[in-house]
């Protein structure tokens, strides 16, 4: 059994689950500056109150899995992204605390709203900046990080940061359109339209710049016969964006579903671009893997725990399905 491949796929699934699940609840914080009414802000938070912390489980699973299964990759990535990782974690702390305090605080609700919104925007931006830094590559020599603390910071990573913030905002809008009704839902639809255009433009620019960053990436996508096999990914993405543009006007659940589809195809494209590198541009997942015995041992634990995590996650979403009323969960 190819334990290395199984583990890299497991971690990829965990990271994608985190990006989409925490993505939409970060998106709700990103949308806060556009929604002024405190009552509507409370309703927005109530839609994710039962699930937001469960969504972050996947970040732990992705990070913990990387540490255990690919320790070399973990050490290199944590060293290279030390500043954005800790900024992101601090932002998530502010955001998490704001969830509970906002509902209790009478005099300082505005401050907690700011903490929630700024925490969401900063966490999303740091994830985008790391994505950009990751695509641009990590300076590694003899299995050690030889770059600087700000290597991740570049015009490309700043652009990726804005792209992730916009992408999460659109996910959040899709989620809220599904959970809200009436006038507020109409306002959300108005917000979604420019977000679709903005995300489409960002996706195009990031995709093209990724192929420009490293000639190997361009070869993978544009050489024959790859171009014929891989062309459906961008073409279907364009089709989904077109469908999304129309769905925003009248559909409820479809907006969120299509946005998830666009995220999936973008993530797939990202994986195809970088595979088999786990620390671009040179360290592959096989170079970075822990010994086979360790991977096999951990797989037993994952085989028991993953169904439990999936089970309680699905149960939570099932219990809190449908529209979120005004009474909320706090």
């Amino acid at each position, binding site marked *: 059994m190819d334990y290395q491949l199984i583990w890299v796929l497991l971690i990829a699934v965990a990271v994608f689950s985190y990006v989409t699940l925490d993505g939409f609840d970060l998106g709700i914080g990103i949308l806060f500056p556009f929604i002024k009414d405190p009552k509507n802000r409370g309703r927005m938070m109530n839609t994710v109150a039962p699930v937001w912390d469960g969504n972050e489980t996947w970040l732990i699973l992705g990070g913990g899995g990387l540490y255990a299964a690919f320790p070399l990759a973990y050490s290199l990535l944590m060293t290279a992204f030390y500043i954005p990782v800790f900024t992101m974690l601090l932002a998530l702390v502010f955001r998490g605390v704001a969830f509970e305090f906002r509902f209790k605080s009478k005099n300082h609700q505005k401050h907690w709203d700011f903490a929630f919104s700024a925490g969401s925007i900063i966490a999303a931006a740091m994830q985008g900046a790391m994505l950009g830094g990751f695509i641009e590559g990590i300076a590694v020599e003899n299995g050690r990080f030889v*770059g600087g603390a700000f290597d991740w910071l*570049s015009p490309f990573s700043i*652009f990726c940061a804005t792209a992730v913030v916009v992408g999460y905002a659109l996910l959040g809008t899709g989620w809220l359109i599904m959970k809200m009704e009436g006038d507020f839902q109409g306002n959300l639809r108005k917000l979604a339209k420019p977000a679709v255009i903005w995300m489409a433009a960002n996706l195009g620019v990031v995709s093209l710049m990724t192929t420009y960053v490293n000639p190997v990436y361009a070869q993978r996508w544009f050489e024959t016969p790859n171009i014929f096999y891989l062309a459906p990914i961008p073409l279907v993405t364009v089709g989904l964006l077109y469908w999304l543009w129309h769905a925003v006007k009248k559909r409820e659940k479809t907006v969120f579903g299509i946005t998830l589809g666009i995220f999936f195809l973008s993530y797939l494209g990202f994986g195809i671009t970088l595979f088999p590198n786990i620390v671009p541009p040179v360290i592959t997942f096989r170079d970075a893997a822990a010994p086979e015995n360790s991977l096999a041992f951990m797989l037993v634990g994952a085989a028991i725990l993953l169904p439990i995590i999936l089970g309680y996650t699905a149960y939570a979403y099932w219990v809190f399905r449908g529209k979120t009323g005004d009474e909320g969960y706090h």
Partner: protein
Amino acid sequence: MASLKPHIKSPKTRRWLWFVGLYVGGVVVLGAASLLLRALMGQA
């Protein structure tokens, strides 16, 4: 002398252009600042 009156009359188009300009300008300015910071740190 060129007229100072705006050529684009539609408020919607003007808003979009302002937004795109500020967004692209913001990324360029922040990008340049990031490169400057890395140069100052000796990491460029």
